[in-house]
Structure formats: C-alpha cells, structure tokens
C-alpha cells in the first residue's frame, strides 16, 4: 500500500482542480476578514505549478514537491505563497530521491511541511490560521499509523481532522495574518487558509484512497 509518483501527480491535479472549483468561495471567506484574494492567489499558483511539474514528472517525488514549492513561492505572493511554498519545499527535502511513498514516508514528509509552515509563519494553534487545520491533521495521521490503520483510513481521518480544525476557526479571534487587524470582529468567520489546507488534505485522501 504505497503512494506512487503518479498518485502524487494525480493528487496535485486534484488539489488544483478543487481549488479552482472553490476559488470564489475562498475569496469570499477572505473578503470577510481579509482582502479578498486567497482564492485567486491559490488558483494562480497551483495552475502554474501543474505546468511546471510537467518538466520534472520523470524525476523523484522530492524534486516534484520542491518544484511545486518554488513555483508557489514565486507565483502566489501574499501570506499563502511563502507558507504553502515553504510547506512543499520542506516536503520535497523530506522525500528527496523517493519514487514512491509508504504511509510512514508520507507522515514524515507532511510533518516536515507542517513544521515549515510553523517555522515560517510562527502561528500557534488557536491563532485562526491554516495551522489550525494542518496540525490536527498531522496528529490524526500519526495516531492512525500508531494504530496500524490502512493508508486509506489514515488519510481520511487526517482530512476529517483538518475539516474539524477548519470549522473550529470560526469562533476564534485572529492573532496572526490580516484577520488579526479586525480584532474581535474577526470572530464568527471561517479562516480561508484553513479552508484551502483542508481541501489539500481531502483531495489527498480521495486520490490515494485506493493506495
């Protein structure tokens, strides 16, 4: 039960497709507590990434993630660019040389990515950011591995944990990012980055379900 390079490429396509589908929704979320650009930013970055990835499709998974990370950094901008960019670049380092990923490989890879986001953005749990979706997902993933769950089950649990973390951002008063400027007024709104992170994890679960 491993995640092949093709499965990784399929996931990136699925992630990009779902972001495109939810582009306007993400921008609406950002309009409420930010500056109405998160959907457009993520869409621009992922489309360019898909194009760039063609040229390294025959390389190892680490190279593919690194390419995505660098493309996101140079095309997304805003806060999401460096954050998602760093996440994928770190994932690339962690999976360097690999042509397929076992579940434990993926956990290590994803953990490196999440650490990259925290290192770059210095957000804590409860600050109303994508970290509130990513960290619960990572913890769920580790727990599943400890319990010897199947890849499919582990990934689905991770996606569900992300979704719960995403919804938990609604009552939070933002401490990081643009939403923090609103103070109390930021409460009552779902964080757009937590939403895009959940899409990332849900599309992984869907694409790799059969792995």
């Amino acid at each position, binding site marked *: 039960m491993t995640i092949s390079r093709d499965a990784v490429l399929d996931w990136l396509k699925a992630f990009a497709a779902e972001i495109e589908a939810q582009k306007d929704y993400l*921008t609406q979320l950002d*309009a*409420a*507590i*930010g*500056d*109405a*650009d998160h*959907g*457009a*930013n993520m869409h*621009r970055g992922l489309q360019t990434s898909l194009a760039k990835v063609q040229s390294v499709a025959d390389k190892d998974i680490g190279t593919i993630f690194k390419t995505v990370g660098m493309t996101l*950094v*140079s*095309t*997304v*901008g*805003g*806060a*999401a*660019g*460096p*954050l998602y960019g760093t996440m994928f670049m770190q994932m690339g380092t962690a999976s360097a040389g690999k042509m397929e990923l076992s579940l434990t490989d993926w956990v290590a890879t994803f953990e490196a990515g999440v650490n990259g986001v925290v290192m*770059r*953005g210095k957000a804590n749990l409860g600050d109303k950011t994508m970290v509130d979706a990513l960290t619960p997902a990572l913890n769920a993933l580790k727990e599943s591995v400890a319990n010897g769950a199947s890849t499919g089950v582990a990934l689905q649990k991770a996606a569900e944990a992300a979704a719960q973390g995403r919804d938990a951002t609604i009552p939070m008063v933002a*401490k*990081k*990012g*643009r939403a*923090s*400027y*609103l*103070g109390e*007024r930021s409460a009552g709104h779902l964080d757009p980055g937590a939403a895009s992170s959940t899409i990332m994890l849900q599309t992984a679960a869907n694409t790799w379900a059969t792995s």
Partner: protein
Amino acid sequence: MKKLINKPEDVVVESLRGLAAAHADILRVEFDPNFVVRLDAPVKGKVGVISGGGSGHEPMHGGFVGYGMLDAACPGAVFTSPTPDQMLAATKAVNGGAGVLHIVKNYTGDVMNFEMAADLARSEGIEVESVVINDDVAVQDSLYTAGRRGVGTTVIAEKMTGAAAEQRRPLKEVAEVCRKVNAMGRSMGMALTSCTVPHAGKPTFDLPEDEMEIGIGIHGEPGRQRMKLAPAAEIAEMLVKPIVEDLPFKSGDEVLLFLNGMGGTPLIELYLMYNEVNKILSGQGIKVTRSLVGSYITSLEMAGCSVTLVKLDDELTKLWDAPVKTPALRWGI
C-alpha cells in the same frame, strides 16, 4: 464592477505598461519578474532603496521610483504581496555596491516574502537591510499578534530614506533614517465606501448609505468599528486623537501632516479634512510645518481618507525638502 479595465487578470501588467510609457524619462518597467526601476539604476556607490507590495495602492510604490526616493518597486497582484523572485531581481538591479535597503510594510505576506528575498540576496553576496513600517494606530500592538499595519508613514519614509541615500550615506545610516521616520510616524484611516478587487468582482464589504468604517487599512478590509456617518469635524477628531495620544505628540512639536485620500475621494474633500485636522492640531499647540495632501497610498477606488503625522526635527525636515523626481512626488528638480 465598474472599472476602466480589460480583463481582471491583465490589470496590473497593463497599468504598469502605462506607467512605463508615461514616465519613460524617469523609469522603466521589467516584466517576469515584474518590477519598476530607475532609468539610471544601479547608481554607483549609492545605497539602493526598494519597496514593494500588492497593487491597488497607486501611486505607491511604482509612482515613487526616481531620483531622491525609490530605486525600484515590486508590484504584486492587487492587494497581494509581491514574490521573492521579484524582490531579488529588483535588489540586484539597484545594487550599486553600497548595499540595498528593503522598506517593508508590516503585513504577514510582505514580511515573509521580503525575508525570503533578503536571504536569497545575501546568499548572492549582496548586503541587505530591511526596515518594517508599522504605523497604524488603529491596531493594538502586541508580541502575540501580527502587530500594526504599515500605512501612510510608508510614503514619508520612502521619500526621506531616498533623500538620505542620495547623500551617499552608508546602508546602516540610511536604514537608521528609515527606522527613525517609522518611529516618529503614526497613522489612522477611515472609509466611506468599500472597494472592488477586480478578481472578486464585487465590493469587499457592504457599507450602508449612512455608515462608515473607522480604523481601516489599505486593502479594502473593514475597519476596527463601523459607525454612523459623522461630520468632517468629528471624523477628524476620531482620526487625530488616537494618533496624538500614541506617540505622543505634544504642544510645541513640529510635524508633517499627510492628509491622504483612499482613491475615490476628491481633493475638495481632502482639503476640507486637512482644514479640520489642522485646526485640532493648532488647538493643541502642535505646529504643522510640512504638508502633503492627496491620494498617495490608496485602496483602489475606496472613498475615505487617512491622517499621518510625522514628528519632525531638522534632519527629517531637510530630508523632506531635498529634491525628488518621481511620477507622483516631484520638487526642487
């Protein structure tokens, strides 16, 4: 959405082409990665001063590129911080051997992207200093948050810092000047209307005919509070009070008063607001010795204004008066 544009995705690049064509005597624009740069860059032996940020704040920053102000500016997508590759390319283009200063507005995205760019530039052997502008008193400052936004003081800092660089002062000193302006500057803004991000296609927020937002930034975001529309005199009070108390500015201080329009408010109203703010300040014995009135740091077509006060001393006053030749600010040359 009513705008003079073609396709939303082409707004930034097409507007940059217009800037380049209209001011070919001062600057040129490079594409992929996008940045606006002084015609004569790099200026040998001069510290290069660059800034950047999302588009939609025109004339900031591209309109401030030229002699005595910025050597280059990096425009991002509308309201989206530019990317490290743009900043790296601009840094290389303006490095005259004396190092490069990055003037960064305090937004998570801007700070992180400029951080990455500075690291890349240093790894290529270019000396880089960064100064973060965070002058918005509408936001409580705190160690545990993203802190205060960089707003109106950015314009004044870019002018004064650029003047210091023209004097061939070393990087450390030029950065010091920029930090000093930031330390002496405070701002507060308000909105009568929202604005429409081209990609979004509809106003970022809805504001009833009889309400306004106080404590807004420059990205069309709602402010700290929404309240009933008030006369100009009361609005001036709401903007000036938190600014004066924050530094604090006191009787006898000499200040630069920057009355800024958010993009959709005409000059007749900005001068009227200037009059109200000026009355309040002189009532407190604060002396306005330099002024700037107009829409220089904007939020697309948002109607509203912001007030920026910068405490002046001889050094800063001289740096303000020094010659500048950019599309948006020009005097003495």
